[in-house]
Every structure is written in C-alpha cells, then in structure tokens.
C-alpha cells in the first residue's frame, strides 16, 4: 500500500453526541426522580431476565459471540475495500450512494434529496438522532414524523430518547395517555391507559401518514458488502411501512454497520434479537437490495456516515466500540444506567456503550462534558458479559480514562495520585504514609469516621469510614504474637 504523505488523525464528529452537563451533574436530577427510578428499575429487570433466558436457550451462544466479534474486527480492518464493494453493489441494483464525512454533510445531503417534500415518515434510527436530522429538517420547514411507537411518544412530548431500544422507557402508561390526549391530532377523547388501546390510537394516527408520505427515512442495522443488501430489524411493522409504501427511500447508515457476506447474517440475526428484546426473533426483519421494480420504493438513496467513526478507528484499543450493533443489552445490565437513565449521558448513545462511544466519536478534550463519561462506571463488568459482540467495555473505559488523564488531568487529583504513587513506590515511605493515615483514628468515634473534608467528602456523605486500626498488617506480621499464632495454626492443622 502506498500513502500520499503522513496519515492524519481524522477529525471528531459533530451533532447530538454530548450533553451540556457533566455526568455527575446530570445524574443528580435523575437520581432524585423516584418515578423515573421505578420505571427504569422495572423495565431493566424485565428485559434482563428475558435476555438471559433467550441467550441461555442456545447451546452455542458463546461461539456466536466469538464469531460476531471477529466478523466485526474483520470489517474494520477491511473497511475501505468493503465500503467500495458495497457502493458498487448498491449502485448496480439501482440505488444511489452518498458519502457524508460529518453530521452537517449528512443533513445537507438528505435535505437535498427530499425534492420539495414537506412531510417525511421515519423509522427509528439512532444515526439520524445522532446527526440531529429532525431539528435540521424542521428548520427547513419539513415535518419528520417518527413512526416507532416509543419514538412517537418521545417526539410528541418534545423529549429525547433515554434508551436505545425502548426510547420511552422513562414514561409510564398514565403519562403516555395524558400525552396522546394533549398532543395527538384526532385522538379519541375517551382513550384509556390500556397499552393495547394506546397502541391502537398510534396505529390510526400513523396509518394516514404511511399512506400519504412521499419519502421515508430509515437507518440500517446491517449493510452487506458482498450483495449491497440493507437490513432493518423491528417489531411494530412501522419499518416495513416506511421501507415499502413511500415512493422514495433514504437510508442513513454508519460506515461501521457493514458485514462482509450475506451469510454473516446467520450470526447477527441470532445475536441481535436475543440480546436486545430477549426474543428468539423480532417480529419483522426487512432486507432489500437497491430498487425492485413493482415492489417498494422507486428511488433509493443510501447515505454513508462517518462523523467521528474514522477518528475512533484510529485508536487500536478504542475502536472495538465500533463493533456495537445497538442491541442495548449493556444498558439493561448496567447498575449505573439503571439508576440514572439515559439522559444523564447527554449523547444520543447512552449507557456503557455510550460512555465509550460518545467521547471517541465527538472527543472529550478539556472541560467537555464527554470527559466525565468514562468515569460514569463502577467497572463492575456486567456490560462485557452481556455484549453479544464481546466489546470489553470496562477495559475501554479504563483506556479512555488513561487518555483523558494524559491530555487533561484534573490538577488536584493528579497531585494526589502522584503523591500516592511516590509513597507506595518504596516501603519506607509507605510505612510513613501508613502512620500518617493512622492519625485518622483521631477523627473517629466508636471506631467509625463520620465526616471527612474534600475530596473524600463524597464518601462520608452517605457512608462511614472505619477508623484505621492501631496495628497495620506488617506490624502484626513482625510481632512475636503473629509468629505464635501462625505456629499454633500449623500445629493444629485440619485434624
């Protein structure tokens, strides 16, 4: 391979990839919302149990995860060639491929393709959320109607999604009924809060939209390089409606969503539904390749989105975050997500995967709120166990913390860490430090310390700290008493 000049680090992405507050600040309000905590707790517990059962049913689950992970690694390693093949296949089959380096370019391309349409229907797509497409279209005087029930709820409420898979997970039925009565044109005023009736109201409202829309905009779960085939995985049928009924279809797909071969779907169509909704298979999956005369849209445009993905790819460790197939299993098992919900993460991508994806896609320099995301985890590892493509999220979090510290370590913290490392670097200094820590006993009553100054105030806000004992282990070890006790144990043995 030859290169013209030295390779440049690709620029970060733009769009809805960061919040306005740091994670602890944003989490503060969510933690106080007891309704949200109850909704989230119930929802994540339910999906967790379903996912475990669905994955446990397959004897070869681990082998599927291994294959899925390796296929994604292979995709990233061969991305330029695969993308070119993909473009060629889509074009041969009557589609048109567009390339968007960033969010603004993608918005501009899509708006340009609408050809004067004032209304479009949309099927749930995280990529369009990422680039802020709806807001962009609105500023151009175009109405975009979300057709996924949860997305519709979020849109009618003027809200943002809080979960990859169940975007309205933070709202309960009573709230949704109230919202429909207030914001859904033509709704039956006697509507009750039975989920079946709420869904039926959405069906009636959206059916007219599907039948009348000229243009649909979708995302894609998978793009097959070998054949040019696109795939959308869904439950409600709104995806099928969008992909089939309007005359023109525009699909926005992140460049990392490729799979090399059509047969690779045999792996991902097992991993994705079981990991996301905990079903053996989701109700509907649609696949299409370019344009099929007499069946579905007459015009098909595919917009390939970079927006920080190439920047992420430039990091040998961090790039495995691009393996993500957006199943949301990591959210559902995450104890942090379960308490704070998705909004605390600020970005389109919440939860553990968001904490490693957003800072890489959009950057985390200086006081960027994204710089707080890698720390929004207790590193408990539940996400890694649940991930169908084996993204080692805890290790990625640790790596991003390292990168952040190298770039912009908080000064006070860095001083403490350096001092601690110096004290621990040598056992004599360490023993002095232990003696100093022992003075903590002066703060204690009945063996517990109940208040500490910053930076440890966060600890004693809700927990006591045990007083340091009179004797360290090494002091005990050096004592005659230790020798005597260990001798007695050895003598006693197991008998």
């Amino acid at each position: 391979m030859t290169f013209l000049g030295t390779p440049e680090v690709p620029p970060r992405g733009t769009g809805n990839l960061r919040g306005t507050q740091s994670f602890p600040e944003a989490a503060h309000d969510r933690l106080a919302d007891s309704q949200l905590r109850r909704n989230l707790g119930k929802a994540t517990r339910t999906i967790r149990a379903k996912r475990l059962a669905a994955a446990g049913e397959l004897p070869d689950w681990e082998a599927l995860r291994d294959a899925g992970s390796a296929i994604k690694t292979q995709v990233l390693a061969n991305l330029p060639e695969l993308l070119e093949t993909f473009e060629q296949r889509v074009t041969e089959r009557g589609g048109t491929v567009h390339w968007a380096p960033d969010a603004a370019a993608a918005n501009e391309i899509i708006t340009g393709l609408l050809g004067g349409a004032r209304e479009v229907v949309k099927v749930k797509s995280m990529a369009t959320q990422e680039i802020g497409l709806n807001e962009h279209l609105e500023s151009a005087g175009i109405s975009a109607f979300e057709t996924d029930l949860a997305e519709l709820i979020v849109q009618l409420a003027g809200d943002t999604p809080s979960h990859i898979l169940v975007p309205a997970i933070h709202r309960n039925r009573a709230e949704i009924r109230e919202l429909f009565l207030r914001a859904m044109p033509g709704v039956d005023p006697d509507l009750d809060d039975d989920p079946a009736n709420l869904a039926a109201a959405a069906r009636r409202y959206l059916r007219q939209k599907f039948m009348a829309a000229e243009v649909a905009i979708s995302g894609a779960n998978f793009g097959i390089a070998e054949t040019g085939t696109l795939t959308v995985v869904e439950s409600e049928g709104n995806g099928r409606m969008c992909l089939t009924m309007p005359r023109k279809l525009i699909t926005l797909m992140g460049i990392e969503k490729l799979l090399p071969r059509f047969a690779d779907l045999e792996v991902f169509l097992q991993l994705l539904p079981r990991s996301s909704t905990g079903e053996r298979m989701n109700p509907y999956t649609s696949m299409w390749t370019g344009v099929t005369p007499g069946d579905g849209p007459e015009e098909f445009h595919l917009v390939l989105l970079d927006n920080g993905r190439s920047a992420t790819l430039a990091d040998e460790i961090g790039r495995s975050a691009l393996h993500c197939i957006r199943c949301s299993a990591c959210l559902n098992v995450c104890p942090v997500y379960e308490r704070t919900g998705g909004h605390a993460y600020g970005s389109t991508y919440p939860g553990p995967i968001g904490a490693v994806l957003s800072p890489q896609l959009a950057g985390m320099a200086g006081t960027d709120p994204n710089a707080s995301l890698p720390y929004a985890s207790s590193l408990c590892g539940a996400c890694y166990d649940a991930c169908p493509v084996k993204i080692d999220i805890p290790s990625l979090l640790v790596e991003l913390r390292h990168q952040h510290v190298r770039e912009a370590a908080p000064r006070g913290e860095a001083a403490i860490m350096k001092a601690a490392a110096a004290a621990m670097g040598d056992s004599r200094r360490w023993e002095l430090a232990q003696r100093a820590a022992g003075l903590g006993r002066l703060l204690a009553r009945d063996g517990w310390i109940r208040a500490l100054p910053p930076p440890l105030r966060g600890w004693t806000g809700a927990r006591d700290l045990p007083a340091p004992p009179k004797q360290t282990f090494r002091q005990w070890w050096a004592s005659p008493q230790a020798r005597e006790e260990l001798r007695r144990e050895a003598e006693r043995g197991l008998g």
Partner: protein
Amino acid sequence: MTGKTGTTGKATVLGRIRDALAIAPPAPVTVPRAYRTGTELPSPQRIALLAERLRDYRASVHECRATDTAATIARILGPARRIGCPAGLPRDWLAETGAEIRVDGPETSVAALDALDAVVTGSAVSCAETGTIFLDAGPDQGRRALTLVPDKHLCVVDASSVVAGVPEAIARLEPARPITLISGPSATSDIELERVEGVHGPRTLVVVLRTDR
C-alpha cells in the same frame, strides 16, 4: 459544510479511514465459526418446533395434509368476503372459499389492499428454532405491500421448506430479492414493556402448515 458531497465526500471518508488504519494497523483476523450450522432435525420434530414457536408469538397455527389445504383455508377464513392473493399462488388453495378473490398486480391501489379482509400467500423458507417465516417476494408471495397492508395474513408453509436453525434458513435465500422475516404478528413492548400484538403490520397472523402426514 458545503461542496463536500458526491465524489468529494467519498474521497474524504475513504481517505480518513485509510489514515486511521495507517495510524493503527489492524492485526489479521480469522473468524471462528464454531457455532451450529447444518443442523438437521427429523421432520415431525421440526414441524412441531416451528408450530410451538409460532404459537409462542401468538400466531394461530393449523396443521393439515397437503390435500386438505383448500378446505383448511376455507374453514379458517370462514366469513371473509374479499381475499387477496399474489398472482403465483396455487389457485386451487382458494377453491373452497366462497369469497371474492382479488389477485394483486402492480396497479392494485393501497386503498384496495386496505379493503381486503385477508391475504393468502405462500412462503420461501421457515426456521423452526426461532419460529420465523421468510418471504422472498416469490410468485406465490407477491410484493411486500400485499402482506403488510391487509389486517389478516394467512401464510401457507410447506413442511419441505422448514429448516432447523437460522444458518440453514439464510443459506436458502436469494439476497437480490426483497426479503421479509416474520415471527408472529406485529407487536410492541414500548409501553412499560407490556407486549401488545398488532401495531402497523397485520394484526392477525395465521399459519397453515402443510404436511404429507
């Protein structure tokens, strides 16, 4: 951001990806494929598993001998007055219904599809383990709108087209055609994760399993 579309956008994106891979060259990787492929299940078990899994999704499933197909369909569709079907559906399957048969064509309007009481189609392949029926727009299945707009879909599955697992099903598909995977009627769990069947797709899915038993 202006003027960076078309070939320029392509050159930019591919250039960035190549730069990224030059900065951090990837190690070669081989894909381990130790998962199950080519699973074979004897016919009665395969059919029983498919039926069980479909019922799990609350589809209604009727098994019949191939020679009883027409009678079974007629019995299930009972009072339906207007039934749609693709041009390539074996017409004898509908011979015993008293309903008016509307054969779908490119000129059939969406409103006409919406007015059907039910649509009857065949299917390409079915996966027993997941309870999934694959439609590939073959002559007995028709275009996608036909199985989407009507509120009831009666889908005929021939026992010979039922395979055990997902890999076996994917292997039988022709990717160039529009493909729809159906695992039960449309459903949502968006409100408090309570499953509701029937949102935008057909609210009723009826499967007729033809066996030679």
